[in-house]
């Protein structure tokens, strides 16, 4: 399902639904229009989130849900509001409106939060003079986690041999690993990673992809932001795409790709003109895709092969057009840009 932002508003659950459970709340935060239930234990959710900095609207009525057991990619161009949203989820920033919830609660209400939410916001967040092990140790101690967890996460991210080295001497890839180790200290069911792939070498990208898949496979809710869709190829199950603080799409990766492929088929042939003629049958759209290829839409592969064979056109290959995630994303954001242009006019009115 692809939801436009407007549909997203309509999908809001009614505040009174479900069994009420008392949620400890801070007076200055106001009442929660939401009910925490057991099913929400490992779900990250933002609803109607709004945040402005001065006259700049950073987040404009954003709603989405990150479910356990899958990797949710959080995508948008730089400045779209990804980091701001994550900061509000982690209680580092206060929303102007709406709620940002982890496990059905506001982050600041969590006890021992490291055991519920793990976060990597900034891979450069360490003191250069501190040993990697000590960096993790102070984080662990703040939540009363045993020191052996430090050794476990160091092993998990492959930094065991570097544990005694000062973080200032680490490479960028090692910083990312150290940051991820910090997020995993409390073995939390929810994970929030801001641009974890940024600046990694191919080996590191593969490592992170496998790690994210494994963490989600264990039943955790994983939210991973990126400004490059290609970085999420092969790791994300679900995508939340935002632009200028608004939701553009909230969709599974499979749906997005299916939709973007449009059932187009690419035919490789030296006889382009003949192929075009043969394939121009009822219900089909045919276009030259290059000097030796033709793109067909509206015809199944079997029919194309039959038509070509019957028409005596030689071809070297027939393949369903599989768009990359990047292509699908580009198509999506192109529409979104148009939408924003319209929305801007409406607002100006």
């Amino acid at each position, binding site marked *: 399902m692809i939801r436009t932002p407007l549909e997203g508003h309509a999908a809001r659950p009614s505040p009174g639904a479900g069994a009420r459970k008392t949620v400890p709340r801070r007076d200055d935060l106001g009442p929660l229009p939401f009910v925490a239930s057991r*099913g929400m*234990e*490992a*779900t990250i959710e933002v609803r109607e989130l709004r945040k402005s900095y001065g006259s700049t609207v950073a987040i404009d009525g954003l709603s989405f849900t990150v*479910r*356990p*057991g*899958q990797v949710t990619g959080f995508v948008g161009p730089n400045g779209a509001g990804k980091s701001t949203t994550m*900061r509000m989820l*982690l*209680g*580092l*920033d206060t929303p102007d409106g709406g709620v940002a919830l982890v496990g059905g609660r506001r*982050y*600041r209400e*969590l*006890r*021992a*939060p*490291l*055991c*519920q*939410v793990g*976060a990597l*916001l*900034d891979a*450069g*967040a*360490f*003191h*250069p*003079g*501190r*040993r990697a092990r*000590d*960096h993790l*140790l*102070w*984080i662990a*101690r*703040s*939540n*009363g*986690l*045993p020191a052996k*967890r430090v050794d476990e996460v160091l092993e998990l991210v492959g930094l065991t041999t570097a544990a005694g080295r000062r973080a200032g001497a680490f490479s960028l890839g090692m910083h990312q690993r150290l940051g991820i180790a*910090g997020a995993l200290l*409390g*073995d*939390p*069911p929810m994970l929030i990673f801001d641009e974890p792939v940024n600046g990694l070498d191919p080996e590191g990208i593969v490592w992170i992809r496998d790690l994210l898949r494994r963490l989600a496979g*264990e*039943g*955790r*809710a994983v939210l991973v932001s990126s400004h490059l869709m290609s970085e999420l190829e092969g790791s994300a*199950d679900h995508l939340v795409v935002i632009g200028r603080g608004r939701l553009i799409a909230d969709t*599974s990766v499979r749906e997005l790709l299916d939709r973007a492929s449009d059932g187009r088929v690419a035919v490789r042939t030296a006889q382009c003109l003949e192929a075009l003629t043969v394939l121009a049958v009822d219900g089909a759209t045919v276009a030259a895709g290059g000097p030796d290829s033709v793109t067909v839409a509206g015809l199944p592969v079997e029919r194309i092969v039959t038509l070509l064979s019957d028409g005596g056109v030689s071809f070297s290959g027939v393949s369903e057009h599989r768009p990359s995630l990047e292509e699908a994303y580009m198509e999506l954001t192109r529409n979104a840009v148009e939408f924003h242009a319209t929305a801007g006019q409406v607002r100006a009115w």
Partner: protein
Amino acid sequence: MVTTTPYRSSVRDPRDGFAQLMLSEWTKLRSVPRWGLTMLAGVAVTILSGMLVAGGAGSSGSGSDGSTKGISPQYRDAGDYVHRVLLGDGSITVRVASQKNNDPWAKGGLMLRASTEPGSPYAALMITPGNGVRLQANFTTDIPGSSGRAPRWLKLTRQGTSVTGSESADGVTWNKVGTVELEGLRQGAEIGMFVASPDALNLRRQFGGEDLVETSNLGEATFDNVKVEPARPQQLPPWRGGGERAAPDATSFSLAGAGDIAMYHYATDATETMLTGAMFGMMAIVALAVLYLTSEYQHGLIWTTFTASPRRGRVLAARAVVLGGVTFVVGLVAAFATFLLASPMVRKGNAAPPALSDPQVLRAIVGTAALLALVAVFSLAVASILRRGAAAIAVVLLLLLAPLVAGSALPLAAAKWLERVTPAAGFAVQQTLERYDTAIAPLPGLAVLGVYTALALGYAIWRSGRRHA
């Protein structure tokens, strides 16, 4: 849609109480080697500068006639004293016939003391040219009588350990001036006439220090009608002291003497001088306290801290407790080491050298540690409010040191006011003597700094929860 059983953390029984926060902050503090070195540098600077200034910290002044030897530089106990032993209860009566008016506080009168040892318990009833009749005891008690001058009759009566002073214009009608208790007075006490006169002082306060010149100032007085009771002439020992030996039945004396029997407000405070090194060590502590906090903003670590512990006020409180505790322990080591290493270098004077057994000295040493701890917490609070390292260091050092530096160039009253109302009042805790330029007593001074620290920390904690990280 994928349905999965939500994951549950394998970590059992996590806690995020204040104790965990403190342990976490301690781990942070101890794991950056540069900070440890900064702390060590602070200790080294404190000790070394203490040793450097110790040589100039000896007692000085002209009370150098041996009679003040071995007592605290806070007191002067010298003069001309003609005395004899009085066994048990009794009294001495005298008429002060004349007194030279060379100083408003020149003293001439009667004195009873436990012994002739400097610093031994005494009670003295005296006439002064400018301050009337006074009954003084043990340097600290001062009871005013009439404003009469010589000639005048004085009487000192001992009963057990109480000594009563009375005065009379004519030797017939007596007015009681007061009664003092002298602890540790034994059966035999010295009783007699004395003359003393404080040195003439020429004090020049200048930028960064003071210049004190004391000139001996001879006081003179004549006494007659001396009568000691009970009158048992055959048992009374001869008069002694004053450079003259008088017959047991002599009744007139003429005495002349310099020196004073009083508190002395111009002595160099050797302990305080030694501990001034802490002022330099303090700069390292201030820098460390500020960096401990602002480095987290600089490196983006503050987000890690606040995601691990979302209750920001508690984080700052835990930081303050840990930093204050560590600084106190380190400060204690530095102050004790300074005292032990620097006190042998103090110039030997007549006054007793400062000793650890003196509660005032002990208070100054422990107080120095407390001073450093408060300064560290104050710096932390200012850093938390300003969030900029250089600005925070500048503000803290300005508040702490500027009053002291400016004070030495300002008139005394203004300097005292500054050292009472600014955070610099905390340095008062290093005093072991009360001086003419003492602005505030040691513990109240520390309390002033404590109030500034509490206000700054309270505001910082209140603000931390309400501010954008």
